[in-house]
């Protein structure tokens, strides 16, 4: 698998993503600067977390209009795999690769902690190494992760199997403070219709090694490598 990470001014988890990809792929991904207009020949583009352009406008709104994102969108429409994590999820959603929007957390506060994450399907290139219904422990770290879409869109996502992950308690339960940000239907991550694009708020790249308190994120990267190699 060949992978690239798109770096914006204000990205801040690009090195974390680079470390995770390097560890799982056995080679370094290519770092692509936001002013570049062309993508290298890769199988996967990762849009990392951070505060692109400071996020002084709506999160991800400016990055979504950068030249490189136009290229990412065009290639994704031809089938290239794209994963957006945290700010990356906000950016690709703003760019129209995914439906819905990420609002300010219901608590109005930034939240950083490990959350329970229920795998909704193992039928995707991102989640094949997980079991459906498996509960993961993965950290979140965001101020605007409250996923919102109208009821019809949410129903469509459910019907098409586009919900990738939901926030849950340690035993998979949905209530009792399991939802860290107020997301509709506890949605933590979604696919596009063709399932070659995944956006998620939690940070699997920070759950790779024992030292990080959980290794549950590693299988996501392994799934991608397996599918795209």
């Amino acid at each position: 698998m060949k992978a690239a990470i798109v770096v914006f001014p204000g990205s801040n988890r690009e090195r974390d993503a680079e470390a995770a990809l390097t560890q799982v792929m056995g080679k370094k991904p290519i770092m692509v600067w936001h002013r570049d207009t062309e993508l290298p020949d890769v199988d996967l583009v990762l849009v990392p977390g951070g505060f692109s352009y400071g996020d002084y406008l709506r999160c991800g709104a400016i990055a979504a209009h950068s030249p490189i994102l136009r290229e990412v969108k065009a290639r994704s429409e031809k089938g290239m795999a794209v994963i957006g994590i945290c700010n990356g999820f906000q950016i690709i959603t703003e760019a129209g690769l995914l439906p819905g929007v990420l609002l300010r957390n219901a608590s109005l506060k930034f939240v950083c902690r490990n959350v329970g994450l229920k795998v909704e399907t193992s039928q995707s290139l991102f989640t094949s190494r997980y079991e459906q219904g498996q509960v993961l422990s993965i950290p979140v770290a965001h101020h605007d992760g409250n996923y919102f879409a109208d009821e019809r869109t949410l129903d469509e996502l459910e019907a098409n199997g586009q919900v990738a992950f939901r926030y849950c308690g340690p035993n998979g339960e949905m209530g009792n403070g399991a939802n860290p940000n107020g997301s509709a239907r506890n949605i933590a991550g979604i696919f596009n219709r063709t399932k070659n694009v995944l956006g998620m708020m939690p940070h699997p790249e920070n759950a790779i090694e024992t030292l990080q308190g959980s290794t549950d994120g590693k299988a996501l990267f392994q799934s991608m490598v397996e599918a795209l190699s």
Partner: protein
Amino acid sequence: MKITPNIVAEHGLTNEEYQLVLEIMGREPSMTELGIFSVMWSEHCSYKSSRVHLKKLPTKAPWVICGPGENAGVIDIGDGQAAIFKMESHNHPSFIEPYQGAATGVGGIMRDVFTMGARPIANVNALRFGEPNDPKTRHLIAGVVAGIGGYGNCMGVPTVAGEVNFHASYNGNILVNAMTVGLAPADKIFYSAAAGVGNPVIYVGAKTGRDGIHGATMASAEFNEDSEEKRPTVQVGDPFTEKLLLEACLELMATDAIVAIQDMGAAGLTSSSVEMSSKGGLGIELDLDKVPVRETGMTAYEIMLSESQERMLMILKPQAMDKARAIFEKWELDFAEIGRLTDTGHLVLKKNGRVEADMPVAPLVEKSPVYERPWVPTKPQAELAANSVPAPKDLLAALKQLVGSPDLSSRRWVWEQYDHLVMGHTAQRPGGDAAVVRLPDMNGKALAITSDCTPRYCYADPKRGGAQAVAETWRNLTAVGAKPLAITDNMNFGNPQRPEIMGQFVGCIEGMAEACKALDYPVISGNVSLYNETNGKGILPTPVIGGVGVLADAAKSVPVAFRQAGEVILLVGETKGHLGQSIYVRELHGKEEGAPPPVDLSAEKRNGDFVRAQIGAGMVTACHDCADGGLLVAVAEMAMAGNLGASLSNPGNSIPAHAFWFGEDQARYVLALPAGNADKVLSAAKSAGVPALKLGETGGAGLSVAGAGTISVADLKSAHEAFFPNLMKAG
């Protein structure tokens, strides 16, 4: 403009100080010159009240690369790497405008660290607020915490440790002390001494606006009812620009373009240009028309005194200009050549073709006033005999009250608002004794970081309190398995012109110096914040210590959490049942009385070295130092962190039970270890001359104390976790 006595007073200069200005200048200064003297000679920039005493602190060790005096201190951590760190206060601005005050405090300290060539890898903050029910407290907490998070989170630097205390003495003067730790190659540290006559002076970063003018002067005066009017002196932070500045500076530092570099912090362009030229023994000439400005019509006075954030001043090699400019253009930051180094020894400022200032640099720095202010020693408090303090009706109910009290409750509400995981190297998270942050590409090597101070001890006995603050950081680093290396100090005190306040300062320094010497633990950087008073009432003396230590392998660090049932719990260190100034006496009896616990530095060293060796040998699975609240609180914290109970036996000595369990004797640690290791560790303790006793074992869902019953860990935890969320949502 004629300089009147009124104008002099408005600039915070005394009549004697102004006479010195006239003597140095040989004429009446211009307004711009007066402004420059004013900020350079402010308490904040000149350390005029504290300098004679700060000299008593030990600052050297074989591993110290750079001690106090630069932007931050530098220590060698082996393998060609250096740790660079410092703590700095942003107390006054945070009280006036909590979000921006705290945010720019974090931004400023990160700049101090990356100016020296380091990538920041961890942030820490030490916060003190007034009483929880003071009408301003909630607003201040909400703003300060959001401001710290807002800046650090955006920068992508994890905020990994810190402390929060409450006390009525901070009602009108909160403390916001921020610390940054960075990592750099030991042979590529950047300093601020200018060199090379004719070399260009380069301004980079954000534009200069009218914000923060006279911030340093504000930070050098007491507050009164009109303090809110000082809001315009608070700067506004832009973490995105700082993130770009960080990346651009590190990219430039990887080349050999830079001769010297200094961030523009307090007193902005004034202090950076004066300090760089004074350290290099050179003159500097600036054309202020070339300074990138945010608004039109700014005067020389305003440009020189602005404290706009996210700016740096550099001296570059002339041949490297194009390369440097390209890097800053890539990051879309201003890059302006605003002057040259000269051999005149003068600071010369030109604007619109007029000379606005022409003043000798050396006397501005060297002749700055130094005061040996009168001081009186703090009157010692009587020791509080344990048997004069009533026992609680129910020991475990008292424990529950303590773990749910403002100073001992969980700080989760605070640190969950800080991104403490970005960079992916956080091995011990907030909530333990010290954070552990692994260093990239160094085979698991890690730094341990903590900040501590017990202000009520410092108030009751400054010398003991100063020593205790240093010793507690040393103990906290030891408790995760790290070898403590050095500290930074943030001295927060009241008005130094009052002899009793100066007495507190002198006492704390004396205690700190003793502890640093005994523990081989030098001070490498620091900051002094005086005049923390409102309407003549000072804060508790608060010398906050930030400690840094090193671990060979992050994976060998231990948490506070009990991990396994059936493990043995040991207590290391001697217990006498010292209740003076304890949280127990304060929370259960509403009194702050008695002398604080004595600090036996040789016991600290002996016990700590022993504990560290046991952790390093892999004998220990969890460790926690005994501090605020005493032994039983320490055990309860380990139980709550691990969601695992314990049963503790009766110590079988003559100390009253409540003094044994809640006394705050120093130099103690609680260890959990597999049963098979207990005898080995106990006999090793015996041969090392370290007091150690078996306290009980882990297991079950409750915490049981022989003779006092059982309380469920979940019950304790709900009290422990409730305080902050309840306070912050209260109507």
